[in-house]
């Protein structure tokens, strides 16, 4: 059933390539995770990404340049991700940008992209320090990275308590995916713990995370005042179930934006009521204009990548945003290197570095209420640090906070320090102002 629904993008690509071989096409490779431990979460992402790309074509492309998508399955495994990258980077006139959707793969590709001159968009994951464009010329953690997520969660908790100072003396547990992905969250929390004087209780959860009993026994023993989850795939659902099993109140549990989507909670249902997660700007946006447009211009034509009912769900929307950013970067690049031309990875990189999505532009694209303005620069490859919290009401997510912004004053220095450490290890020199113009 599912199999039949998911029309493999590459098939379209092949067909498409046959159809308008002459037509100008901008190639956006997709490293999908439709199998393995993260399949339930990574699949909607890919579907959303591909649907939006189709929508862009339905709208007439990027100033006439059609988007072209080809998938390669990584199953969330780093070595397969690398193979996929190598396979796709040269195809269809060269890849515009890669979005690995895996921190492990991001780490591996970060070493390779400078050589191949292909940018990486890692919205909300990957290396947090890669927000520093001065060192990471090719990485773009657009609109958020783990440290933003962590900071906003704490801010939200603070607000609930009625002031950050109330965090003093509290005990906050962190259940994290025992991998680079999970660990990347810790630095900001440690920083803040030192600052506000709460104690941190790190609880690593071994992937894939189907057996978490002992973790939650510790939670029951330590009775932390709050639990923060940095989990992915089946791990999140299991965590919530185990929390329920040890009677830890879901109201005190907060996921990062990889730990708060429908696939994680729908089979827990009412059991997960009260569980909240920080959302990187968007949440489930079934009412948004862009979703309506996708339904009418893509799904109605039977060209939908995934099942219809998934359109507008959290991770689907994240895929849509990923595609949006990838496309708008190219649009920005065309402004400089020539409208209606196919951009190389190098040119696209400039686009991502000089992104300026005003609210007006976003609204026009149908992202009213979904996204806030984003503007990047040579040294800021993130562009925005806004987020919201949504809470599970037993069957769906509802917003439970206003827009919150992470404290750049705290994060910027951490990013810079970490980036410098990386530069030192790799014997890199910071980019000069001149390099920014290139």
């Amino acid at each position, binding site marked *: 059933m599912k199999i039949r629904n998911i029309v493999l993008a*590459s098939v379209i690509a092949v067909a498409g390539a046959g159809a308008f071989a002459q037509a100008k096409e901008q190639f956006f490779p997709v490293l999908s995770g439709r199998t393995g431990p993260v*399949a339930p979460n990574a699949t909607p992402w890919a579907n959303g990404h591909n649907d939006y790309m189709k929508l862009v074509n339905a709208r007439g492309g990027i100033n006439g340049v059609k988007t072209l998508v080809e998938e390669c399955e990584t199953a969330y495994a780093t*070595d397969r991700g690398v193979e996929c990258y*190598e396979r796709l980077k*040269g195809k269809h006139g060269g890849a515009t940008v890669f979005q690995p959707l895996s921190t492990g793969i991001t780490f591996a590709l970060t070493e390779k992209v400078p050589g191949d001159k292909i940018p990486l968009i890692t919205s909300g994951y990957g290396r947090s320090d890669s927000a520093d464009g001065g060192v990471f010329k090719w990485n773009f953690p657009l609109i958020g990275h783990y440290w933003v997520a962590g900071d906003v969660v704490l801010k939200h908790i603070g607000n609930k308590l009625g002031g950050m100072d109330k965090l003093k003396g509290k005990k906050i547990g962190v259940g994290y995916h025992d991998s*680079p992905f999970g660990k990347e969250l810790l630095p900001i929390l440690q920083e803040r713990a030192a600052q506000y004087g709460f104690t941190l209780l790190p609880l690593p959860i071994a992937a894939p995370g189907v057996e978490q009993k002992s973790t939650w026994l510790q939670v029951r023993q330590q009775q932390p005042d709050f639990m923060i989850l940095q989990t992915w795939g089946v791990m999140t659902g299991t965590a919530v179930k185990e929390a329920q099993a040890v009677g830890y109140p879901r109201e005190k549990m907060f996921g990062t934006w990889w730990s708060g989507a429908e696939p994680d909670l729908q089979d827990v249902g009412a059991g997960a009521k009260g569980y909240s997660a920080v959302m990187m700007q968007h949440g489930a946006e079934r009412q948004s204009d862009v979703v309506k447009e996708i339904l009418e211009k893509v799904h109605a034509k039977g060209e939908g990548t995934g099942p219809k009912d998934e359109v507008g769900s959290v991770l689907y929307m994240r895929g849509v945003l990923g595609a949006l950013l990838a496309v708008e970067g190219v649009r920005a690049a065309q402004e400089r290197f020539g409208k209606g031309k196919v951009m190389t990875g190098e040119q696209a990189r400039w686009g991502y570095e000089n992104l300026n999505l005003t609210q007006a532009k976003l609204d026009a694209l149908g992202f009213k209420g979904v996204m806030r303005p984003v503007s990047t620069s040579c040294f800021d490859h993130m562009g925005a640090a806004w987020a919201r919290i949504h809470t599970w009401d037993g069957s769906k997510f509802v917003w439970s906070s206003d827009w919150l912004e992470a404290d750049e004053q705290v994060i910027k220095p951490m990013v810079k320090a970490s980036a410098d450490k990386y530069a030192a290890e*790799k014997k890199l020199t910071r980019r000069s102002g001149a390099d920014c113009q290139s």
Partner: protein
Amino acid sequence: MFYRENGQFKTSYRADQQIFPIAQDRWAVLAMLAFGFIAVPFLFDEYMFRAILIPFVILALAALGVNILVGYCGQISLGSGAFMAVGAYAAYNTYVRIDGMPLIVALLAGGVFATLVGVFFGIPSLRVKGLYLAVATLAAQFFCDWAFLRIAWFTNNSTSGSVSVSNLKVFGWAIDSPIQKYLFCLTFLVVFGLMAKNLVRSAVGREWMAIRDMDVAAAVIGIRPMYAKLTAFAVSSFIVGVAGGLWGFVHLGSWEPAAFSVDRSFQLLFMVIIGGMGSIMGSFFGAAFIVVLPIFLNQFLPAVGDLIGVPISTAFVSHAELMIFGALIVWFLIVEPHGLARLWSIGKQKLRLWPFPH
């Protein structure tokens, strides 16, 4: 009728003990080496190197190591991934912690540490056999997974626990282009392949095989099971460790323990089964087969589906991959327990008789 040993009379035992007693074989192998070192770099594009050739060469080296343990000494191991990991992380630490540490020395050091760990986890093999030993080696696997995740020292205290190396040099000669990387790994493969071949046709090799075929009899003619098994573990994990180092340093460049998970162990074991247990050549065949098959399916199945008008999803492809793998393992175990290597030698036999079958 050209592939014959007719007229090639051995006048000394040395001549008879050569790796390839038949002249044509010697030429064939030399030709293959020449091809590998000289022709290949000109033939293939970057993708071939990065995605197929380099992984193949490195995994072939690892499979060679596993084959010594599983194929020659008959000690089943599901911890090969762990020994690769030890090799990679030990090499990493020697490389980054000691200034001006030459790359090759670092890699070999990785191998040495892998040897130590391998021997340690090989100790149970003195008491237990078969599946029990498999479980013992799995213990090695899970322990190492944990250690490299949890003990910050191993990863040089990187916050994410992911480590990376760059600007590799050998004798002031940078290893960064795919071709250089390929040649670098290939050199390792050839050198270790030759040494392994020498070992398995020497006293030690005979001891391993004796233990594999009939351990009690082996003991009675004075072979110490302990010595034989532990040397097998040592040699095996050394080679596997070096392969691990290459995998991290040369192929991935940046890695985390997941790169050497238990799946890797299974993968290596399958290479040995499919390639041919107790055959050096087999290790190479197996590695080639298992590296290429999934990539082939990934690109072939959708194409087929496209032809017959049935869209094939990425998900289905990788599930089909699992199935085909499993089926092949079983098929080989049933039909050709000696794997591709046996098919190869049968082919040679036929060629020898050709065109006169009798």
